[in-house]
């Protein structure tokens, strides 16, 4: 009557399918899956709307030009922008009154002194109507060109002198410039992993606790082994999590596409695949840990408190990201990358900071696989034992369960 660790994949698949179809209908999943993308899209749209709004808002400015040089140039420079500029020929006091009466949002005085010092002031009845950032680039360009002209430079020389400077980084062994995706993809997957574990890991743990409380576990274990049951549950919730991540990523990419040109990131399968493997195995490992944890608990409330603490442990590397990124190949970093709860976060952070050698990718994947089997094994043992008492299992019971046959 020895229980074996042999897994029946058809049984695990049946459980996975059941958990997936059950989980996808829960309000918690629907809310988390669709509210978060809506928030992402909402934040993106908000940024877009404010940008559009700012662009649509016209700033009416008057200008007293005591130099006689800057006014016409600035008028030409701000043509077809949302700055409506008018050169005022009356007195400063008159302009002040007109501005206070609402004829202009503000006015600007250009004198030879402030032209020399480079310090300008916009006077306004309500400074909230003034966006200095909108006019500054135009003013800066006009004044720089005027100064250079004053030094005797011709138009082509000025154009050459004011050409913007760009700075890039080139990997020595690659012909193409360094792909920013090498940094972004692992870091983004690390963040998604954190969110997935918080949300679907929590659902998985509650599912396990609920099954114990509903007493359904005994009839399940009379049909299949606890190992198949827990493996199936992790598979089901893993699929749910992938679906969730897929929806979130699509929403995130749609929003980001407004601001970022994806071709510039240098995305490729070679860049995406290794961190994705770590992400996937990392999720399964942490989900197994949560399932094992759920098996020890009696009430969902107890679960949420304990889970808060447990979530922190695998995510400790995120708090040390500064250290990790500056020394991604230090010995202590390499060691911690192979210790179960820290593997996924450590590996993803390191992958963002450096290129891991192939042999280390291999040992990390092996360590993850080993941890998954270990956690499912421990969880299934606790799960079987737990049905006898329907109570929380303490550390004392845990060691007994793992040492003795049950």
């Amino acid at each position: 009557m020895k229980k074996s660790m042999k897994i029946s994949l058809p049984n695990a698949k049946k459980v996975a399918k059941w958990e997936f179809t059950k989980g996808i209908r829960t309000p918690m999943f629907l809310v988390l899956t669709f509210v978060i993308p809506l928030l992402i899209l909402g934040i993106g749209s908000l940024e877009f709307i404010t940008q559009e709004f700012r662009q649509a808002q016209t700033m009416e400015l008057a200008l007293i030009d005591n130099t006689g040089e800057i006014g016409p140039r600035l008028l030409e420079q701000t043509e077809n922008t949302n700055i409506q500029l008018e050169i005022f020929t009356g007195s400063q006091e008159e302009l002040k009154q007109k501005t206070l009466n609402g004829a202009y949002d503000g006015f600007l005085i250009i004198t030879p002194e402030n032209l020399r010092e480079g310090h300008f002031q916009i006077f306004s009845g309500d400074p909230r109507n003034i966006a200095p950032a909108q006019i500054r680039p135009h003013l800066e360009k006009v004044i720089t060109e005027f100064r250079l002209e004053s030094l005797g430079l011709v138009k082509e020389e000025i154009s050459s002198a004011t050409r913007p400077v760009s700075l890039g980084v080139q990997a020595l062994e690659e012909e193409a410039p360094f792909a920013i995706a090498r940094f972004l993809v692992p870091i983004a997957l690390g963040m998604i992993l954190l969110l997935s574990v918080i949300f679907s890991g929590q659902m998985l743990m509650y599912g396990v606790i609920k099954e114990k409380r509903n007493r359904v576990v005994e009839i399940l274990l009379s049909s299949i082994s606890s190992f198949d049951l827990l493996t199936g549950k992790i598979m089901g919730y893993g699929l749910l999590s992938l679906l969730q991540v897929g929806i979130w990523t699509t929403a995130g990419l749609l929003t980001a596409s407004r601001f970022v040109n994806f071709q510039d990131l240098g995305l490729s399968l070679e860049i995406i695949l290794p961190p994705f493997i770590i992400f996937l195995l990392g999720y399964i490992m942490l989900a197994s840990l949560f399932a094992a944890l759920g098996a020890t608990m009696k009430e969902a409330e107890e679960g949420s408190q304990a889970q808060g603490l447990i979530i922190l442990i695998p995510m400790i590397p995120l708090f040390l990201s500064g250290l990790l990124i500056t020394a991604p190949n230090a010995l202590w970093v390499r060691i911690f990358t192979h210790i179960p709860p820290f593997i996924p976060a450590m590996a993803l952070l390191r992958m963002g900071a450096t290129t891991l050698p192939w042999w280390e990718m291999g040992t990390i994947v092996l360590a993850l696989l080993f941890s998954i089997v270990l956690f499912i094994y421990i969880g299934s043992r606790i799960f079987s034992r737990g049905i006898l008492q329907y109570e929380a299992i303490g550390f004392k019971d845990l060691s007994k369960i793992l040492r003795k046959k049950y």
Partner: protein
Amino acid sequence: MEEILQVENLSKSFGGKIAVDNISFSVPRGQILGFLGPNGAGKTTSLRIIMGILNPDKGDIFFNFNGKPSSLDKTKVGYLPEEKGLYEEAKVLPNLIYIGQLKGMKKNSARQKAQKWLERVGLEEYANQKFDKLSRGMKQKVQFIASVLHDPEFLVLDEPFAGLDPVNQNFFMQVVRELQEQGKTILFSAHQMNLVEEICDSIFLINKGKQILSGNLKEIKESYKEYNVNIYFNPENDPSFLLDNPDIQINKKNIGYLNFTFQGDNKINKLIDQITANLDLKEIQASPPPLHDIFINAVQERGEEVDENQFA
């Protein structure tokens, strides 16, 4: 007779407390075996070990399916656990289909069988109702369907009558009898002995983890040469000749009525002749002792105590 299950020297303890203490029994194919004892006797632990949910500390379990010795084949055994429950938020039919699939059934076959069983127990209207919306009796019926859906050869029912009203108890007894008629073998545990003695072919009595008595129910009852006798007679008659009989122990006495226990080996017929000759009888009932009394006697003969509250 071929045995579908053989349990040998089974023992199990939890944290130093012995739950099952060296018990052995077998279940003949096609029979109903009542696994009886008070609450906490070790019945559920034994059945969980048989179902492979727990490992024994000691002992062996052998199955015999399709005439061949084998280990536990969960697809051929139906199990109704003592702690009953299914997925509360899921509907009745999907719950049953899922359990059927775990027992190796195809989805369509599980659906058809589940619908037939729901009709059989009068719950066809509740197929698409959430499980947690059902009454306790209904839940028990659905749980029962989950244990028989895959048409198992061998059925293990742990306290199937617990918490049921008399109407539902009778219904379940009728279904169990039907399953036996279809050739199924049934092992069920119960603590309400009066109920189960009506349908059992054989019994296994357990108390505090220890085996008390086992065998064919009829033979056990016959071996107890003791009768419970009720007589109703003309109130003007004098029954004092019975009071002087050393084999008779009077339990209750009224005008025109007597209830007594007779321990007279094979002399019951002689006693009845004597009663009919001396009294103007309206009615006489002589029956072997109830299973509950047999259990109490058997435990006491071993010098042990029985907590009567544990039969509630």
